[in-house]
């Protein structure tokens, strides 16, 4: 399709689909088709039983050729379902796919107004009229392709990051693996055994760690931090700071330096259960194995060398106090975020006495205690007297499923406790073990077996959490006081040690990663995936993928599965070597642009750059996701939002309010949540008043105040702006602008004496069809009270918009 063709007068073909009786049972499709034939620029209008069928598509293709159509409208189901089908048909017939438009007369008409055939038919006519008006103004577009750099950045060196890095490296891509700690390994390295198979954790992890260290395609950057990420899918530039270890690669990990180092502190790896020196390696299997000096506690401060014991002890002369931080700039095509999670700190639950009672420990501390390589040599000793306790208790859900901690289930604690109880039974069968729980969630492969085994081994499971732990000051034994909620009896149980089965929570610095990679987070604080079912490892930002506990709490198996999936997803992109970008990005109109920079400020993707010197606003097309919030912000009509232009949307409004505007509600719905929610209402056959007319935009952030004002000036009864819940925006946070704009409009309406109830804002997710339906009902009620004077007032107030 050439531009010349598009410039020709529009010749539109309209196809009204019966969808069997799904539409035709309510809407008089023949009447709608006849009506469409009367609309301007319509060359041909037909109704058809199943337009999406092969015959239906053939009909369109033939008509395009036979009748020389240059625009097509199909009135049928939701564009979310079949837009791509019909676009493909148009393309097959030689018509540019961007010259096609759909009218949603099924999910948003016939299915939701089943009992009002007349009104449904009228609504279908309106929707077709709007589609015809828009399609006449559509422009052909060619999708641009962006090349993809065939390098990947993996952030986080836990088991998820390790797996992703190895998979990508084995596929043949170069991988930068950045880890902030001195060694990779993450939480899995701290754990003793894994459930349900009871494999030794470090024994299965260490070979993988070592593979990372030796892989020719992996650049391991431990003790390093990502400081900046710029660019877009396929073309990221990441700044990484490699912090000095003060020990060179010459280090042979002989430990001579550590033996002479005079400074000791509690070791982070053992959660303070053992000491380390100022020069140290976090654990025996650390990768890289090169030692590191903790300058925070080393006697040698900036410029003063007080102690040279390690230097003296090192035969290979590997110690270098002059090492400097090394800033690196990496060019990568894809990024995998595998930053992991932290454990919940139970010290704020004062009734459990953690930090007050020596013998109350956390499940992570337990892992170090039971580990043969750990500080107690694998002996389950309690801290107060270093003796093996006669009885222990586990308390579940500490900091999980609670308003006082985190509201979600941490997923791994139940099985971890069962595993731990079996470990105790294996070594010390006489130790009495109590597990206090509210629900045992043993849902995975092999999990139930393990649970059964624990019960067989004599682990006592009691339903009901202790309300309080009190310590016997003489023996340092602990009294657990609670209610057995199955027996409805209070219990007071005396044990030698208590293990708090603590939950998992997002890393305290995950907001930094969120900012750097423009990610979204769910209310729980974990990173949000692009789609919970079908794109579970894609981040909403193109080219970025999620793996491991950064996305949600999960066990090792799930982390590794997700890591391989993320590597595969990243690999697909890099194998293709290029990516095409939907042609819905803005084009700048330089002659209108005042270089104010407002568009750049509201862009959630930093895709707009204002170059004051060259007097240019540039849109990085590949970075842009097409939300259109820049277009809504621009005061000077300097941004042409392709496929959702001001003129196109205005024409839709005009078409929808051509008849009886004061009885109608114009609803602007974002493609991902509100529009999908309205579709869901249709699928669920939730009935609502038929006077709602929905206009689809990609994001509610596209809704410019002038659209609303225009609608009011045309005397529309009410306007609804609907988008994703704050925090769930498909375009990171563009809907924050929506809220601001609507609030501003409310103020303006107030000032102008227009009833501000006529403009409503709704947050509805794709699953909240009910919300859309009830909002429609609610607005219908207010519409009934609307007086002609009020309508006139609105018209006057916004006349000329």
């Amino acid at each position, binding site marked *: 399709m050439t531009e010349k063709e598009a410039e020709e007068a529009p010749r539109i073909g309209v196809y009204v689909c019966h969808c069997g009786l799904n539409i035709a049972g309510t809407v008089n499709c023949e009447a709608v088709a006849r009506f469409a034939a009367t609309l301007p620029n319509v060359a041909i209008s037909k109704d058809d039983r199943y337009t999406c069928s092969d015959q239906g598509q053939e009909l369109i293709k033939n008509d395009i050729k036979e009748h020389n159509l240059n625009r097509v409208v199909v009135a049928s189901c939701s564009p979310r379902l079949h837009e791509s089908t019909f676009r493909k048909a148009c393309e097959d017939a030689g018509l540019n796919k961007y010259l096609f438009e759909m009218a949603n007369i099924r999910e948003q008409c016939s299915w939701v107004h089943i009992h009002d055939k007349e009104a449904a038919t009228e609504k279908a006519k309106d929707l077709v009229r709007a589609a015809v008006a828009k399609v006449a103004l559509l422009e052909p577009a060619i999708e641009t392709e962006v090349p993809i750099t065939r390098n990947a950045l993996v952030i986080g060196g836990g088991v998820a990051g390790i797996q992703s890095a190895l998979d990508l490296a084995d596929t043949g891509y170069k991988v930068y693996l950045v880890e902030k700690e001195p060694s990779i390994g993450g939480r899995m390295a701290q754990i003793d055994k894994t459930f349900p198979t009871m494999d030794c954790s470090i024994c299965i992890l260490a070979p993988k760690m070592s593979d990372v260290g030796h892989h020719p395609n992996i650049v391991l950057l431990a003790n390093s931090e990502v400081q900046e990420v710029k660019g877009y899918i396929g073309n990221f530039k990441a700044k990484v700071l490699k912090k000095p270890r003060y020990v060179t690669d010459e280090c042979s990990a002989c430990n001579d330096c550590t033996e002479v180092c*005079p400074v000791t502190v509690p070791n*982070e790896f053992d*959660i303070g259960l053992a000491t380390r020196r100022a020069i140290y390696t976090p654990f025996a299997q650390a990768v890289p194995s090169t030692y590191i000096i903790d300058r925070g506690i080393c006697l040698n401060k900036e410029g003063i060398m007080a*102690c040279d014991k390690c230097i003296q002890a090192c035969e290979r002369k590997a110690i270098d106090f002059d090492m400097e931080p090394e800033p690196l700039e990496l060019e990568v095509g894809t990024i995998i975020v595998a930053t992991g999670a932290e454990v919940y700190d139970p010290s704020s639950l004062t009734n459990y006495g953690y930090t007050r009672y*020596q013998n109350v420990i956390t499940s992570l501390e337990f892992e170090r205690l039971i580990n043969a390589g750990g500080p107690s040599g694998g002996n389950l000793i309690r801290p107060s007297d270093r003796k093996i306790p006669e009885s222990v208790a586990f308390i579940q859900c500490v900091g999980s499923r609670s308003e006082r901690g985190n509201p979600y289930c941490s997923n791994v604690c139940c099985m971890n406790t069962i595993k731990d109880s079996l470990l105790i039974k294996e070594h010390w069968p006489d130790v009495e073990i109590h597990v206090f729980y509210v629900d045992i969630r043993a849902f995975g492969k092999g999990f139930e077996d393990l649970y059964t085994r624990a019960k067989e081994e004599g682990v006592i499971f009691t339903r009901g959490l202790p309300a309080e732990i009190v310590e016997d000051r003489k023996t340092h034994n602990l009294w657990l006081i609670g209610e057995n909620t199955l027996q409805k009896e209070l219990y007071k149980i005396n044990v030698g040690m208590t293990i708090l089965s603590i939950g998992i929570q997002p890393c305290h610095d995950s907001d930094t990663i969120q900012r750097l990679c423009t990610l979204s987070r769910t209310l729980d604080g974990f990173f949000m995936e692009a789609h919970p079912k079908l794109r579970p490892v894609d981040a909403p930002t193109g080219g970025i993928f999620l793996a491991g506990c950064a996305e949600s709490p999960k066990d090792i198996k799930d982390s590794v599965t997700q890591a391989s999936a993320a590597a595969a997803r990243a690999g697909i992109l890099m194998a293709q070597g290029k990516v095409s970008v939907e042609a819905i990005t803005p084009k700048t109109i330089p002659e209108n642009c005042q270089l104010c920079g407002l568009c750049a400020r509201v862009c959630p993707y930093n895709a707009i750059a204002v170059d004051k010197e060259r007097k240019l606003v540039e849109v990085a097309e590949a970075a842009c996701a097409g939300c259109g919030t820049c277009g809504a912000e621009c005061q000077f009509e300097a941004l042409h939002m392709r496929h959702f232009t001001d003129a196109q949307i205005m024409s839709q409004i005009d078409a929808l309010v051509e008849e009886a505007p004061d009885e109608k509600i114009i609803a602007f719905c974002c493609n991902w949540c509100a529009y999908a929610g309205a579709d869901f209402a249709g699928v669920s056959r939730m009935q609502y008043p038929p006077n709602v007319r929905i206009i689809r935009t990609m994001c509610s952030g596209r809704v410019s105040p002038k659209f609303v004002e225009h609608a009011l000036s045309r005397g529309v009864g009410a306007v609804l702006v609907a988008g994703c819940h704050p925090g769930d925006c498909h375009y990171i946070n563009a809907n924050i602008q929506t809220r601001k704009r609507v609030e501003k409009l409310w103020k303006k309406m107030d000032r102008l004496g227009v009833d501000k109830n006529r403009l409503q804002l709704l947050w509805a997710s794709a699953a909240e069809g009910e919300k859309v339906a009830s909002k429609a009902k609610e607005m219908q009620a207010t519409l009934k009270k609307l007086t002609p004077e009020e309508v006139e007032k609105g018209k006057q107030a916004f006349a000329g918009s």
Partner: protein
Amino acid sequence: MVPRKLWRRPLDSEQIKLPKAEIHIIPDLCKGCDFCIEFCPRKALEESDKLNKRGVYPPKVADESKCTLCGFCTAICPDFAIFTTEKKEETSRNGR
């Protein structure tokens, strides 16, 4: 929330044997530059309240257990007025 501070006494805290130090000061050699006090990385020294022959306040030991035998005081002292030796616990007990 920032990661919790490590609060326990490490289980191996008794096994870790760091050499014990004995700090020797020869007060009358000191000219009172205070370098040793200022630069001691563990702040094991402080100014004494007795004047020496040279009319200055020489250092005195504030807390001998803090000394790690790094020897920096010896190296930095312009007057050879301070040095450290490793304390042999048994011999010192036998010596009495």
